């Protein structure tokens, strides 16, 4: 009676076959629409002459739309300055896929490969790189507080081997926007994950500003996405709108959040445009693509020989007002005309997934703001 061993072995074989075949099927399916997505923009300047192909290690914490946009921005920004991947520079892109232990291994790999500049997207990735980099310059991106994260000593003069960009959340503009859309709002919810250190400054600012504006604040945290549905449900039922800082866990689980909040007709104001595209109502967001482009500018200075210790951290100020008219319709809200004017509407850009990808390219031209 060995039939279960036989069945089990057969199933294991199937699992292995799928493991080997599925990535091929997936890429074959995605080939058509994704063609050219990763290619640098056509607006590339002339290639800079370098004596050799410069090796760059690029580490991203996890794939989600806003971090992917930062990455695309870096490629585009580099191209604009005449550095094209595969031509005069070679970018070794690795994705940590959210696995913290993997970040260290990848970083070690970069150092072993003698990459000349390391680039980290999101705080844990940049920290992992800096810890192993030694003298190798590190450029960070997608970070709210590099000083608290121990990456640089100060913004003006990093004093370490790491420099890059900060994208402080424009909380004040955020809350003003929420007030403009919902003048009667009394209770504001704040939702973020307790494991994220990235959001602390935004949460602190939001609480202070909300108090000044006479809003009651209800603060909730989650430890992982399994808790999101219930926590969001509860928070949505007791607040007039919910503010979501730049939180990677929630960004990955927007559909869950939106399903819960829509049921209570509670608008969500995230701080990232990609999160608006996935169902948030509106934001004054740091332009994610612009963060990448600005990072590329810092990166170019480092590539051209400046010491990171002397390159000031660039503060990304480009903000966009982004609204989602689909979400407004679902919530039964009318967006005030002065808000819609000049704002980018994610509903125009097609489906949610499409919007977050193509939105990055579009917004490059419309950054304005302050």
């Amino acid at each position, binding site marked *: *009676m*060995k*039939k*279960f*061993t036989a*069945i*089990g*072995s057969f*199933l*294991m074989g*199937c*699992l292995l076959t*799928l*493991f080997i075949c*599925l*990535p091929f*099927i*997936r890429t074959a*399916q995605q080939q058509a629409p994704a063609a050219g997505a990763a290619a640098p923009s056509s607006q590339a300047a002339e290639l800079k002459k370098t004596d050799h192909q410069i090796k760059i290690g690029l580490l991203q914490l*996890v*794939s*989600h739309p806003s971090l992917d946009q930062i990455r695309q921005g870096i490629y585009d920004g580099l191209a604009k300055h005449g550095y094209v991947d595969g031509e005069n520079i070679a970018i070794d892109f690795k*994705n940590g*896929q*959210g*696995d913290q232990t993997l970040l260290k291994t990848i970083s070690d790999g970069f150092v072993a490969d003698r990459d000349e500049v390391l680039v980290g997207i999101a705080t844990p990735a940049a920290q992992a790189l800096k810890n192993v980099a030694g003298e190798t310059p590190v450029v960070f991106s997608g970070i709210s507080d590099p000083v608290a994260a121990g990456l640089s000593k100060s913004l003006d003069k990093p004093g370490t081997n790491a420099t890059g960009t900060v994208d402080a959340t424009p909380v004040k503009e955020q809350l003003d926007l929420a007030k403009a859309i919902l003048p009667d709002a009394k209770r504001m919810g704040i939702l973020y994950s*307790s494991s994220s250190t990235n959001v602390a400054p935004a949460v602190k600012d939001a609480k202070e500003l909300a108090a000044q504006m006479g809003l009651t604040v209800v603060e*909730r*945290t*989650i*430890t*992982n*996405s*399994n*808790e999101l*549905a*219930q*926590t969001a*449900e*509860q928070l949505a*039922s007791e607040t007039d709108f919910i503010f979501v800082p730049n939180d990677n866990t929630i960004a*990955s*689980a927007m*559909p*869950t959040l939106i*399903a*819960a909040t829509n*049921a*209570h007709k509670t608008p969500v104001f995230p701080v990232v445009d990609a999160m608006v595209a*996935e169902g948030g109502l509106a934001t004054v967001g740091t332009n994610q693509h612009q963060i990448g482009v600005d990072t590329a500018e810092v990166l170019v200075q480092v590539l051209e020989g400046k010491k990171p210790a002397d390159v000031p951290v660039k503060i990304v100020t480009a903000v966009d007002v982004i609204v989602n008219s689909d979400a407004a319709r679902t919530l039964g809200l009318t967006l005030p005309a002065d808000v819609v004017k000049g704002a980018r509407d994610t509903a125009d850009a097609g*489906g*949610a*997934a499409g919007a977050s990808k193509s939105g990055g390219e579009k917004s490059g031209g419309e950054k304005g703001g302050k």
Partner: protein
Amino acid sequence: MEIVLSALSQGAIWTLMGIGVYITFRILNEADLTTEASFTLGAAIGAQLLVLGMNPLLSMAVAFLMGAAAGAVTALLITKLKINSLLAGIITLTGLYSINLAFMGSANLSLSGATTLKTQMGVFGLPRNVDTLILGVVMILIAVAALSYFFRTDMGQALIATGDNPFMAKSLGIPTGEMMLLGYMLGNGLIALSGYLVATDSGYADISMGIGSIVIGLAAIIIGEVVVRNVSLPVRLLAIFVGSVIYRLLLALVLQLKINTDNFKLLSAVILALCLSIPALQKFFAGKRAAGLPASAVPATPGARVAPVAGGASVAAGAAERAADTGVGEDGSEGAR
């Protein structure tokens, strides 16, 4: 009402997880950590197949079978390579992380735009959460009916005997290794199914969604056992649904009480520990109150009593011991299961 409905629907789709854990944890008497990864596996492979446009029912079947494959890996590590069962689970769980990533292609795979069971149910225009609840309840009923039938067959009885006392079962000619393999495959298949349903419900699969899932499964089983005692196996499995919903409600209550949500995990652990210790606590207090009371007044861990009937019921030492512990009337009778 909203909250109750949310708890019901979430409880429903997580119940299959509880039933899967029940098979390994209570019937086979093993703590199987494969769970945390086979749950994600079901979600990952199901989501990817859905995105590729496969029929939802077909992809659900694939998710079940691949979950079973994961269970088979762990069981073969235990039976053939003689690896400690906890370690075997951890080995499979570690390996599956990469496999899950390969299936999804990234740490997070959105189902927006894909045809799922939930979007197919959209044509009925059901209110939110009700579609999930119906889906979950239908799956629970199918699973419970199939398992109840299975555990009445000779093979099912052999599986139960293997869990109760592997040495005795072996001496009776039951191929315990094969039975363990079957149990692990069934359990993890159901867990993968639960992962598939959760991914369908939340609209995405995420590489970290399985973390802590075994706690949710165990909590459902244990709360179910505390609420409903001394029942037959089909009812016991249905009680997991009750336990799963109560666990969700407890968490909702915690939120209602405005307890700092940073302490969510601690509270889950406390709820779980309290429920697990109820039998012991009851024994302790009952013993204090009246030392001479008959033992039947003190029910032992209710779910642990899966006494085999056919093929040497009362000879199985473990079962006999437990039966004695719980008093007469349940030993070997239908009621015990």
